[in-house]
């Protein structure tokens, strides 16, 4: 128990002393997770709309598959992507393995199905009146989709937050595809793994607390954003 207290002290100390390892790891964690979340959002959400707006045979099965992919283990993604990125793999010549780009690729594979499935779930449950109204008012198919997207903005943001949380906290992909290289691909979670293996438990927990601190800050930002969008959403409908 004692070392939990020590870890709190250490976390505060690490943050205030601008420890170089912690700063670099935070930087890697943040930009890799942000980039992969953005890519996952711009691929996952449109796919969700495509699936939801079209009626085709096998749609149910596709959605079930999508939901299953939410349970993809990170080590499996790590292994499969490794097979593609290693020098003997199809994309080996790019030399992506053990770079932050490899981590991003793995994390996109992780987050896209998650964001997509959650958006599909929202779209399946939402009242489609606004979309039909938009169509009767002469909107194109694309415009009506946008109107609907505006309507479920908060839920989409929730899906994006969930995706971000998943990639920000994962360690399997980062360690297998990034290689845990100091100051380059070592992020907060892989540092925790390393510190644990070195027996530095309190430092590991301290880093965990720092990770949660970042996650909290980011969620506050998202909260503010989604709050604002709700207001603009209302005024949009009002207008």
């Amino acid at each position, binding site marked *: 128990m004692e070392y939990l207290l020590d870890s709190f002290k250490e976390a505060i100390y690490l943050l205030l002393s601008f420890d170089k390892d912690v700063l670099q790891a935070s930087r890697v964690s943040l930009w890799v997770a942000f980039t992969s979340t953005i890519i996952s959002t711009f691929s996952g959400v449109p796919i969700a709309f495509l699936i939801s707006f079209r009626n085709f045979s096998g749609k149910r099965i596709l959605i079930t598959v999508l939901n299953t992919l939410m349970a993809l283990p990170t080590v499996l993604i790590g292994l499969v992507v490794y097979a593609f990125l290693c020098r003997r793999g199809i994309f080996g010549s790019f030399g992506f393995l053990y770079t932050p780009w490899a981590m991003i690729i793995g994390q996109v594979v992780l987050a896209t199905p998650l964001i997509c499935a959650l958006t599909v779930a929202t779209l399946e449950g939402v009242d489609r009146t606004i979309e039909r109204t938009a169509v009767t008012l002469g909107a194109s198919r694309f415009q009506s989709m946008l109107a609907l997207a505006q309507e479920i903005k908060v839920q989409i943001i929730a899906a994006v937050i969930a995706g971000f949380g998943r990639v920000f906290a994962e360690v399997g992909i980062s360690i297998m595809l990034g290689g845990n290289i100091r100051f*380059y691909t070592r992020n907060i979670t892989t540092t925790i793994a390393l510190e644990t293996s070195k*027996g530095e*438990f309190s430092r590991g927990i301290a880093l965990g607390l720092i990770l949660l601190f970042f996650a909290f800050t980011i969620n506050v930002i998202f909260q503010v954003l989604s709050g604002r969008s709700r207001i603009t959403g209302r005024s949009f409908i009002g207008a």
Partner: protein
Amino acid sequence: MKKVFIFIIALLISCSGNPVVLKMASTTSIENTGLTDILVSSFKEEYDIVLYVIAVGTGKALELGKNGDVDLVFVHAPDLEKKFVKEGFGVSRRMVMFNDFVIVGPESDPAGVKNAKNVTEAFKKIMEKRCTFVSRGDNSGTNIKERYIWKRIGVEPAGPWYIEVGQGMGNTLNIASEKKSYCLTDRSTFYALEKSIDLQILFEGDSILVNPYHIIAVNPEKFSYVKYREAKIFIDWLTSEKGQKLIGDFKRNGKQIFHPYIDLNRD
């Protein structure tokens, strides 16, 4: 569209950065002691070559070399290394340093390992008393040495007393400490963790337990893109007086961790 374009440009720039980057697969036992950090920064200062260290077990490190994913490997399993070189994957193999393996366990020493005459007798005692033994079980250099000793006794260790954890040396020692078990470890990692775990060195000094570390460059004839020239610079630097002195001076908790191998640097 513009975003995608910027992304691609950024990608290209990141691939053709200025200082040369070398990738080296090394073992967790070196990384956990902190020696790699010191080597990386001193080498960068002198040659402006960035060394990226990927710390994995020896088995995986050699596998990465065979796949051409790294430029160098820094490992400790002589038989596997020789095979690696013989199969044409590695060149310029040099001895860099050595330390030794030790048997650690709980202070009470229920198997009486302390009084063993040699390491095989120590292992036999642990097995006969069915005392818990934690094995790396990950095909690392340490694991290979351990299996070699079991083989010398002529047994295939199995049963509830024999735990294979499949993790790095540090984690394995933590598990051994929690379970009050015996464990074969390299001395360096043990010293690095000594303060936070409840284990003691119970057996040491058998000549079988010597643990040499070699560095090997990945053969540029197999993989044309590996940076052999820079890899060779690092190998020469590491085995030079300067590199060897860095290794010899490296201490954790006031104890020397690795012994430089300067006299034997010949193929």
